[in-house]
């Protein structure tokens, strides 16, 4: 079953993946998937030519979770995947912190790649999150995401 979690503090994407996989195994038994693709977005310390020392990730509590669940449901409907996972950070974050993890499990690699790509692209256009960057001389809202 798809899982969506918002973290108001640091999370370890690969530890979380490991935990989710053991849940998957309890649910479906061993040997049910052959391909897992994951994407992790990490905070850089530069953007559009400026140093960024910190970031605040605002979200719309309630709608954000709902939007992420819809994205998972769509991935499950559109691709032959066994399951998928979306984790996202909110609140105050620092360079090198993980911002987002998306992952998909499937029998074959094509579906796993396509589904996790779709999860992150759809998250970037649909999920109500907004980044505010702290620069040396103030703060600015990020106006739009870079293209995938």
């Amino acid at each position: 079953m798809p899982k969506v979690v918002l973290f108001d503090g640091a999370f370890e994407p690969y530890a979380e993946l490991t935990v989710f996989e053991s849940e998957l195994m309890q649910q479906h038994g061993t040997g049910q998937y052959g391909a897992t693709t994951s994407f992790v977005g990490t905070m850089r310390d530069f953007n559009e030519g400026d140093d960024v020392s910190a970031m605040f990730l605002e979200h719309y509590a309630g709608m954000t979770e709902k939007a992420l669940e819809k994205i998972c449901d769509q991935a499950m409907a559109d691709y032959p995947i066994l399951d998928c996972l979306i984790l996202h950070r909110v609140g105050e974050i620092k360079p090198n912190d993980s911002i987002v993890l998306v992952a998909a499990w499937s029998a074959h690699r094509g579906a796993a790649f396509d589904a996790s790509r779709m999860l992150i692209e759809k998250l970037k256009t649909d999920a109500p999150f907004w980044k505010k960057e702290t620069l040396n001389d103030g703060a600015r809202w990020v106006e739009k995401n870079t293209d995938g």
Partner: protein
Amino acid sequence: MSIKVLFFASLRDEMGRGEDDVDLANAKSVADVWKAVADGKEMPSNLLMAVNQDYVNAEAPVQDNDEVAFFPPVTGG
């Protein structure tokens, strides 16, 4: 008709508030709600809107007790 209005991110900064509870007698659509709360500001062309936490467009109808949210393009991930 009682409507809860929410603004997020840069739009909240511009509007000077994140939340507004308004009582609108004649609002039929999300666009009417915008007019009532936006202090004469035109709707930005890239504005996103949601009613009860689902995306809608400006023509979407509103009802008593709806939660109507306005926000700029999202930048998560």
